[in-house]
């Protein structure tokens, strides 16, 4: 069974640009989560999508947004990039009934210069 996949693996942007990160969940999973893992800050919850709807968001500014498509894949958009947005962005998925059991993808490393 294929795991969670993310693309691209690496992304280099300059300050002020926009970044788009993509995630495909495990087959059969309807929930997708986004986390940011910045150096020294640990894993921070960003967004949760389920059945195409945003269900919860973490303590991040509105320039972090996303969506979930009918096939349950998801996209994270980061607008007006700042240097401190440089981090590993991790996507996880779960079934609708066991949200605590989240499986992570390999991540997208975003570097803002």
């Amino acid at each position: 069974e294929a795991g969670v996949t993310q693309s691209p693996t690496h992304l280099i942007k300059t300050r002020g640009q926009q970044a788009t990160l993509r995630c495909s969940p495990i087959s059969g999973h309807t929930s997708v989560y986004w986390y940011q893992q910045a150096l020294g800050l640990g894993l921070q919850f960003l967004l949760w999508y389920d059945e195409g709807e945003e269900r919860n968001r973490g303590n991040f500014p509105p320039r972090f947004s996303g969506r979930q498509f009918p096939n349950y894949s998801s996209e994270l958009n980061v607008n007006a990039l700042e240097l401190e947005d440089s981090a590993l962005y991790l996507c996880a998925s779960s079934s609708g009934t066991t949200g605590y059991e989240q499986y992570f993808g390999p991540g997208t490393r975003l570097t803002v210069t």
Partner: protein
Amino acid sequence: QKEVEQDPGPLSVPEGAIVSLNCTYSNSAFQYFMWYRQYSRKGPELLMYTYSSGNKEDGRFTAQVDKSSKYISLFIRDSQPSDSATYLCAINNFGNEKLTFGTGTRLTIIP
């Protein structure tokens, strides 16, 4: 006060030793407790989860939860060099689905 506290280490032990990794949490409403393993430059891998006080065993790994003390532990028996990684505890409030992570403990098993 952080919701989850975890000793960042680093922790180095000889191969074959028993490893103990620990976290404390502050909110008694948390119901699910997970342990993840993360190798360098990889995504976290779910090792175990539990939702009640007591022990849960899976091979060489044992997860222990003490809700009265708000203390969770992961024990690794017969540790191997391949166990060298960062171990993250995570907790969850059922219905919220947001995982709150500890900062991770970096573990090195010395051959």
